[in-house]
């Protein structure tokens, strides 16, 4: 889900609701200052959080663009890599070519991880958005509680039953540690095996080099200290041939040793490459979870937003009906007087109106409770 696709969500959170709260609700707001303050405070917090979340999404997108610049999608890169799997690790390939192949796998894995970070940042935005919308819903439900205390016993029981559905939450565990886990894996490989590969290969080459220079030095020394007679020379040359032959064999054995070590290093690189592919699988599973979460949270958030809008309409109408502006017989004070005289605080028809509000509150709580 790209950040442009998130615009409707942001619109829901920061245009529709505040507009509804500050515009359409003006009448309610005048009657209920604490409600206005609470909603405005939630909106402020939500706006700050959303700005931070959008920044994080943009950063993650920039990183993903940087990592995959000039290349196709990570999947295409991986499939292309798959078509050349055998390359780089053959007997005649140098250790460098195997390293290059492994590095290519690292670059692809980092692309997957960068895209995963985008999904995680988007999921965080949806998650925070949900919690702020939920908070708004709770403010409305709290307002209703004040009215409910004035309901008759029968209606209050109904209200409590609706309320007792409880306010749950949606939650999903997204493995935010995966990218760092992958990076740690690569770093570990680099720190341990990588340097040991490099060390092994350069050590063997150094040893071979040392051996060869030693042979050269021996020849040089023997020549300098060699005998003068032909016989002495022959003895000297025979000894030299014997020693040099042994040295060459030793050097050849060392070359064999270095080939074996290189081969082992290639095998280890190949194993590390497989580990990377396994990690990509994990990263993709997690990204799928994050995307599923975003889609579901978006659905719940929008529905919750619409329900708040509908609830607000009923709430406003009900308040206007229960406490009309220019009717002194229906003020709180007048109603309390009537209550003291043994008459109900609300009439039956008024209670029916309130119950519509209770029903709407039930829908609010059901969205808050909706299973992911």
């Amino acid at each position, binding site marked *: 889900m790209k950040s442009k696709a998130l615009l409707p969500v942001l619109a829901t959170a920061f245009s529709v609701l505040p507009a509804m709260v500050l515009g359409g609700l003006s009448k309610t707001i005048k009657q209920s200052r604490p409600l206005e303050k609470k909603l405005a405070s939630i909106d402020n917090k939500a706006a700050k959080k959303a700005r931070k979340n959008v920044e994080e999404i943009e950063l993650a997108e920039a990183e993903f663009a940087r990592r995959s610049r000039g290349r196709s999608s990570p999947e295409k890169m991986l499939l292309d890599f798959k078509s050349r799997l055998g390359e780089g690790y053959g007997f005649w390939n140098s250790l460098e070519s195997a390293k290059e192949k492994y590095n290519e796998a690292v670059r692809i894995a980092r692309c997957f991880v960068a895209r995963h970070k985008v999904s995680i940042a988007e999921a965080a935005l949806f998650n925070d958005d949900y919690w702020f919308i939920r908070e708004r819903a709770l403010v409305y439900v709290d307002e209703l509680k004040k009215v409910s205390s004035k309901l008759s016993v029968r209606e209050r029981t109904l209200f409590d039953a609706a309320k007792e559905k409880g306010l749950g939450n949606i939650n999903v565990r997204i493995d935010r540690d995966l990218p760092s886990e992958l990076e740690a894996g690569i770093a570990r490989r680099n720190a341990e095996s990588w340097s040991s590969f490099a060390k092994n290969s350069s050590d063997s080459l150094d040893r071979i080099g040392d051996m060869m220079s030693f042979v050269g030095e021996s020849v040089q020394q023997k020549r300098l200290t060699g005998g003068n007679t032909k016989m002495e020379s022959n003895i000297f040359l025979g000894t030299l041939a014997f020693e040099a032959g042994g040295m060459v064999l030793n050097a050849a054995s060392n070359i064999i040793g270095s080939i074996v070590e290189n081969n082992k290093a290639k*095998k280890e690189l190949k194993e590390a490459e497989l580990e990377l*592919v396994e990690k990509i699988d994990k990263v993709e599973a997690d990204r799928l979870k994050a995307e599923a979460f975003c889609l579901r949270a978006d659905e719940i958030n929008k529905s919750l937003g619409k329900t708040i809008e509908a609830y607000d309409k009923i709430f406003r109408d009900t308040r206007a009906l229960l406490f009309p502006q220019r009717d002194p017989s229906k003020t709180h004070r007048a109603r309390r007087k009537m209550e003291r005289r043994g008459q109900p605080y609300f009439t039956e028809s008024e209670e029916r109106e309130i119950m519509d509000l209770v029903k709407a509150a039930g829908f609010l709580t059901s969205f808050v409770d909706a299973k992911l």
Partner: protein
Amino acid sequence: MNENDEKDLTTNFQKGIALMEAASGSAEQAFGFLSNLVDLGKEITRSKVEIRRIDAMENYLITKLTYQYDIYHKLLAATFAERGKTIEKHFTVIDMGIKTSDRELILGGLHSLASIVKESPFTNFERFSAAFNAGTLPPI
């Protein structure tokens, strides 16, 4: 390796030692060198087999993960697009109710909306992915 191969190997090995001995003047060194050579052959074969085995695993994993997640993402998108259309219709009903102050319309719209949104689409999705992974999807 059959008996003849073993004989050949032994003969070649002995010839090799003789040659190396002639070159170096030491049977011990020649033997050591040829042993190393044989070990190298074994190591190369072992590595080749191991690398091929890893290649096969990688090949399977890459194929699986690219196609599997592609299908999952498409399925998710299609599921939510379908639900989105229905949800939008209920939004329209609720909007109409708000506009005309028709409480029945509002509550009716909310009721239908809740019946869809409360139901998690992931139950079916989980069932699908389990069948997909087990290869037990019914034929289309």
